[in-house]
């Protein structure tokens, strides 16, 4: 029953995409303007880039940066968020800094990192991580504040050793917050990575899009955008969502 509903949902999602693509094709054919190439031209550009090997190379570069900064930002943000939710004094101390961090534009941190640490890979990753950590921390702080003291009392009453207490009693309570942070994180990080690549790297999707911009090659810009968005969707659908469903199977 629920499988049929899922399948129907899946098909209706595909249908929306098909309708959008058709509308785009019609509009492009009607306008006949270089600024709006039809989907067929974008697919052709995609095929060309894929054949030359450029697409895979730059996607790989960007994906590596996304993965690395995602992992680092999650670790730092989760630790900071838990600590701030746990100790009100630390929270008071760092709250202002956190709000500041949330509001600094990605462009500013990127430029500053490049100026202070040079046009290096480390500076690029650091810029993305600095951008993302405050958001993860804010989400996890909410989670740490919502920890059920009754369940923590169970852990204390039975004298559970610290690691078991953390992984089997504490952390499971944070899972909805972890997934919220991860999902938002994935969406935000790849956008920031592109800016970072545009400003100071000589490979990656952001660098390529900068190049195509100089040549006014809109079809190629769109082809890279589509390819990377699809990759993120697949990551979310094949990794994040099944993992979340598995961890939430006790909610009936």
């Amino acid at each position: 029953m629920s499988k049929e509903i899922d399948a129907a949902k899946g098909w209706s999602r595909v249908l929306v995409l098909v309708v959008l693509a058709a509308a785009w094709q019609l509009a492009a054919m009607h306008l006949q303007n270089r600024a709006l190439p039809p989907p067929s031209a974008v697919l052709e550009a995609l095929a060309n880039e894929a054949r030359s090997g450029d697409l895979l190379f730059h996607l790989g570069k960007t994906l590596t940066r996304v993965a690395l900064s995602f992992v680092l930002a999650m670790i730092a943000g989760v630790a900071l968020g838990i600590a701030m939710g746990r100790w009100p004094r630390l929270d008071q101390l760092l709250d202002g800094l956190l709000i500041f961090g949330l509001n600094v534009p990605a462009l500013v941190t990127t430029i500053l990192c490049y100026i202070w640490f040079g046009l290096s890979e480390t500076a690029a990753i650091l810029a993305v991580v600095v951008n993302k950590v405050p958001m993860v921390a804010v989400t996890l702080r909410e989670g740490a504040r919502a920890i059920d003291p009754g369940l923590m009392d169970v852990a204390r009453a039975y004298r559970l050793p610290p690691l078991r207490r953390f992984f089997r009693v504490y952390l499971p309570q944070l899972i909805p917050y972890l997934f919220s942070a991860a999902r938002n994180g994935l969406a935000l990080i790849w956008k920031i990575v592109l800016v970072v690549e545009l400003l100071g790297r000589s490979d990656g999707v952001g660098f390529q899009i900068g190049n195509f911009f100089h040549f006014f090659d809109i079809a190629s810009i769109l082809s890279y955008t589509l390819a990377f968005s699809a990759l993120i969707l697949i990551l979310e659908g094949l990794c994040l969502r099944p993992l979340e469903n598995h961890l939430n199977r006790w909610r009936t």
Partner: protein
Amino acid sequence: MTGPTKNNQVLQIDIESKRYPSGTCALHDLHFSVAPGDFVAIVGPSGAGKSTLLKIIGGLDTHFAGRVQMPAETRFGTMFQEPRLMPWLTVRQNLQLVKPDLTAAQLKNLLADVRLDDCAELFPSQLSGGMQRRVALLRAFIVAPHILLMDEPFQSLDAPGAAQLRQQLIALWKQSEATVLFVTHSLTEALSLASRVLFFSGSPARIVLDYKVELANPRTIDSPEVVAMAQQLLQSHPNILGGSAGV
């Protein structure tokens, strides 16, 4: 502070005072000791600080003036007012949480003891309230506790469910060497389970009556001897449940 006891008592309580963060005094000048293997019920008006006392004994609340003495390495089992199982762990995993070396055979026997056969791989949300409490009861016993702390564990159950759990509690207790402290506000529940009943006054709690129960098991809250004893108690101490031993 905690430390060893004298005179072979499993527990020696000497609480000078316990104040809540709000400043209200919950416990004052409370002294008693508990002999090994005893089943002590604590009865008193709500808000008398009974739960707080259990938290202090169990080491969950350390902000008090006085001493709680017990032998070193005392193991505790605890049952709270709610089952408090981890919702993300199955019945088996909830039990393994407190006893990781639980074998499949032990698990099977334990679940059969409380008539939860075939429930090992279910999550708490798939169990009724009574079944969740039976799992919590098992969890309290499988750590082989020296002291079992129970804070009105059966209060929100229907009468047959509560009766069944009381029966299972007594059965498990008889097989164990646990000393039980059982908080309740029901006089007949206390008399049907305990070998000794401590009656508490209202806040701040003092002991107004220390009552020995010498009745044969098995008995229930409806057994004639339990009902008679309750009536007799209420006749000699009309306001005992309100926290006063006076006539």
